[in-house]
Every structure is written in C-alpha cells, then in structure tokens.
C-alpha cells in the first residue's frame, strides 16, 4: 500500500467517528519502489490529498521530504517530493491503528485488511 492509498482509508467501525483518520501506521516495514514521475497527475492529485494526514504519516515513518504546510507555489521540487512520498513509499508489513477506537487493521504483503467483524458494522 502506497501512502496515497493510506490517505484515503479511515476507521469504519460502527460509531467510530472522531479521530478515525488518519490511521496510524505502526510496526511498519517500508519499501521504496521507483515509479514513473507524472507531474500532471501529481498536480491534479494535490487538491485531493489530505495534506496534514500525508505530512504527519510521512514524519511518523521517518520521511521528512514534505513541508508541514502545503506551499502556495507548486514547484517541480514539490511535485517530485509528493511523488516520492505518496506514490513511491509503500508499507509492506505492519498495521494501521485507529487513534479513536483502537481498532487494528493489519497490513500484510502490502494489502491492508479493512474487513470488520459482524458486530462492528
């Protein structure tokens, strides 16, 4: 799972509505795989990203390539940084933990398990 995908997932346990995003990544085994840089795509992606979630998640994983505030001016350096963080950094193993209710979503072989038990839906 790349961080762009993590940016779109939240806790969906029934009744868990506060602090359910972003999920905190723990015990992460990270992998960086080079991907083709598509500046037009990254530019279009910016307004859809939750910047705070991306920034704080990256920092929690020891990645400090992004500015804390989304800069007003979009430079190629910024596009490349977003590309690297959101589209090249992936969580191979670990877990995504809800800071609201504590639910743990395991990540195995890069695939987050977002399935809930019957009583959580």
């Amino acid at each position, binding site marked *: 799972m790349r961080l762009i995908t993590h940016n779109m997932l939240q806790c*969906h346990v029934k009744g868990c509505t506060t602090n359910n995003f972003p999920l905190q990544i723990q015990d992460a085994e990270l992998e960086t*795989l080079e991907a083709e840089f*598509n500046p037009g*795509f990254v530019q279009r*992606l910016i307004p859809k990203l939750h910047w705070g979630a991306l920034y704080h998640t990256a920092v929690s994983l020891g990645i400090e390539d992004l500015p804390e505030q989304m800069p007003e001016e979009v430079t190629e350096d910024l596009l490349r940084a977003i590309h690297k963080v959101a589209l090249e950094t992936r969580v191979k193993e670990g877990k995504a933990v809800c800071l609201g209710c504590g639910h743990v979503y395991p990540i195995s072989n890069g*695939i987050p398990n977002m*399935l809930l038990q019957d009583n959580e*839906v």
Partner: protein
Amino acid sequence: MIKLKQLESELTQVTKFREPKVQLEQYPTTAHLAASMLYTAATTYEDIEDASVVDLGVGCGMLTCASGILGAAYNVGVDVDPEALEQARDNCDRFELDADLVNLDVQELVVPADDDEHGFRLTQRLSADTVVMNPPFGTKSNKGIDMVFLQAAAGIAERAIYSLHKTSTRDFILRKAQSWGLKGEVVAELRYNIEASYKFHKKKSVDVEVDFLRFEVE
C-alpha cells in the same frame, strides 16, 4: 498506445480464480471482455491514461491489469476475498504493474445519509477519476448487490464508471443511476459466457445477456 488485439493477447496471461467461491459470484472476466471494455474507456473516452482508476471487486485483477497496461497513473483494486487479492497481486506483478490492493467489503462502503443530496455517503475517503468493475450480478442470495457496487462507484468516481450489468435490469439501473447523479449509456450489448466453473452448472457454459454500461458523473 497498445493495439486492442495485443492488449487482449497480453491479458490471456492473467490467471483465473483457482477455487472460485460461489457465494461471491467469482466468474472470471475474460481477456476479450476486459480488453474491449478498457480499450474503449481509454480510446473513445480517454478515461484511463494518466488517470486514477479504482476497480471494485477486483478479483484476480483482470480489469486492473488492463487499466495498468493502458497507462493509468494510479490503480487501486478492492475486494472482500483475501485469496483473490493475493492472486491479483501475482497477476499485477506479472506485468510489473503498480496497483494497490485493499481488502474491503464493497457492501460496507456505502451507508445511508439523510443530509446527502443523493441519500448516501461512503465510509472511506476513496476517490478516483474512473471506476471500472465487473460486479456480481446478484442473482443468488445477494440480490441487489450490483446496485450497491454501482452506488459505491458513484461515490468514488469523479469522471466516469464502466460496468457490466444484466440486460434484463437495464431500465431499473439507468433510472437508479440517474438518482445518484450518473448519466448512463449502453456502450455495447454482450453475451457473457459464464463457463461451468461450479459443480451445480449442468450445462458446459451459460450465456447471459449483459450490458456494457458507461456512466458519466454529472
């Protein structure tokens, strides 16, 4: 861009469900069907190349592989079945495609919401330019599941949705879709050849009349 024939030929390498699960209606999407669908989406409507694409009910990954080969910038496949996802992963690896896979029940994606103009919201923040899917037809104990998939797709897609539905329910689907802000059109009428993947199929294969639909997000 790759030629249609070549795309189809590439996609024949995608492996089918090893042990299809009846309750999930895991009929494989054929290479021919996937190539026709995604090639049309890419060339006639320009909805694939450089776009973000979500595949709901990704299964073995047939549509996602086609989307990746046609140059989508970002692919995500969602499925309830972890075994199917492992297979989708292998199939994406075969083409060296970067697709993210998420183990999620599409039926848990949609919840009613009175304050929404279309009456529902998503439980996740998933969004993409384009959604592609070959949803379960909902002919067994899960009647209406195809409409849940379409509703989820309506919440995710910002541009267009490509989907397959039984021709017999066309009018109902187009009307429902309109109430969710989707303008649907029939791109092609197909005969979907469901091979006798399950023991309860007495005939060798069953043909179902299926619409290939495109929905534009209004």
